């Protein structure tokens, strides 16, 4: 039992990463019918921006001789990096996708792949091939809860992720922008007739998704402090799987599927040798998809593409 709970904690942590990234995929897919394959790399960019911001704040604080507590530096890093990364998302939408709004979907898909490659190699050109260490802002302390070892970092990662997901859910349910996003997911072409500027809503969707990916990147950096330019690729694929498994445009679906992925991976590794982890985990997910080809939830939508 203790063994089970120990793995549960780990699964929650990995699920948090996947779910946060999957949300950005899912929102863009739901609203613009577009797979943003650059999204995994936005996660990477977010982690690097987080690295830069954290290093910058630390340097500034020591330069000005202000004693900023490390937790405050981390909170500031998350907020500022989310903000900055959202502009990367807006730029990707504006330069990469908006010109292709009416183009065949395949063109938009390769655009994502190309932007991904540009972000990876751009990072390489900018910072060189050596890996970057995310500053260790919080000391790890471990708590023993009835035999289950939990670190403060894991608790923080899961709590911050859940808070962000809850905030997103409230935003989409309660604000007029969220309402416009849901309307676009249902019937994109009619939305301008409501006086809603769809370009603004599209840009906002990219901004929010990118901000969440940045948060995931920083939280990942806190847990696993070595960053490299290609770290977003596998994360991107897996989060994409979670987004589709969750159902088209469903926030709840993407969140649950993200956590499910974390659970399956961790529990497979608990039973089988860890080298077989992804082999078995993704075979299981393939099987789930065979039974639920539309994913778990999936928002309804009108299939009419013209007015």
């Amino acid at each position, binding site marked *: 039992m203790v063994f089970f709970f120990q793995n549960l904690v780990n699964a929650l942590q990995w699920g948090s990463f996947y779910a946060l990234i999957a949300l950005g995929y899912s929102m863009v897919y739901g609203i613009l019918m577009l797979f943003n394959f650059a999204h995994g790399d936005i996660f990477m960019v977010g982690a690097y921006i987080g690295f830069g911001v954290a290093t910058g704040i630390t340097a500034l604080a020591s330069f000005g001789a202000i004693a900023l507590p490390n937790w405050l530096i981390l909170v500031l890093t998350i907020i500022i990096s989310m903000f900055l990364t959202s502009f990367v998302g807006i730029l990707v939408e504006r330069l990469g996708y908006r010109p292709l709004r009416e183009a065949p979907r395949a063109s938009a898909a390769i655009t994502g792949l190309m932007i991904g490659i540009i972000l990876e190699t751009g990072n390489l050109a900018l910072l060189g091939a050596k890996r970057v260490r995310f500053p260790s802002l919080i000391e790890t302390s471990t708590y023993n809860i009835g035999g289950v070892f939990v670190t403060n970092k894991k608790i923080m990662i899961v709590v911050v992720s859940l808070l962000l997901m809850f905030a997103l859910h409230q935003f989409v349910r309660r604000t007029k922008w969220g309402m416009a996003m849901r309307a676009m997911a249902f019937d994109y072409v009619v939305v301008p007739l409501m*006086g809603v500027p769809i370009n603004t809503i599209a840009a906002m969707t990219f901004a929010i998704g990118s901000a969440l990916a940045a948060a995931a990147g920083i939280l990942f950096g806190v847990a696993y402090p070595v960053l490299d330019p290609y770290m977003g690729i596998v994360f991107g694929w897996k989060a994409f799987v979670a987004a589709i498994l969750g159902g088209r445009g469903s926030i709840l679906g993407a969140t649950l599927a993200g956590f499910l992925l974390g659970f399956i991976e961790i529990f497979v590794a608990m039973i089988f040798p860890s080298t077989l982890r992804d082999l078995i985990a993704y075979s299981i997910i393939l099987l789930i998809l065979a039974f639920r080809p539309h994913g778990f939830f999936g928002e309804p939508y009108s299939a009419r593409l013209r007015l």
Partner: protein
Amino acid sequence: MLLSVKNLRVSYDNIRALHGVDFQIGEGEIVCIIGANGAGKSTTLRAISRMVPVEEGTEMTFMDQDLLQYSADKVVSKLGISHVPEGRRLFGNLTIMENLKLATFARKDKEKIKEDLERVFDIFPRLEERKPQKSGTLSGGEQQMLAIGRAFMSGRKIMLLDEPSMGLAPLLMLSMFDALKELNKEGATILLVEQNARMALQFAQRGYVLESGSLVLEGSSEELLANPEVKNAYLGG
């Protein structure tokens, strides 16, 4: 003139759908465009709400503003032109209340929005009863009410209605036209396009006849109803 359209030309994939259409609508009028399926009625409305590109030489003004300077969402939010599209196109995943609220996305006049909402619920009490329900659960008649209510909320200077009677039982159709008359009294000018020519002409004050992308006839509703060509082609002889 509230709305003035001159030499309106639209093509889809190099096939011309409208060959230079001219018409004008004054404030407070109820005007209809009748015509067969494929005559270009819907395209005319889409051009006014800037949902389809128009060709060089087209002139459209609304309250002396150049309509072509406005994007589709600004036509609604800045000029007050609302459009009930063919097939209503409600957001089935949103509640009735949300459908109405979304239409006020760009509006800042909170007090007036409240008043307008009350007005919509006065005219369509069914919508108020069912406001927390998803609009996808409404019957056809209720959906049409919501589509009209939504258009009224988004901008009330002129309402463009694309086949509002489609799919409605005769009694529902009558009550819908009554409701539209109410909204017209509230200050909404109405331009509707209809295949159901008799119904449309009985409701409107005047009308135009559109045939294969060109306006071929115009006149008061009485004149058109009495016109032998119109009788033959559109009123079933």
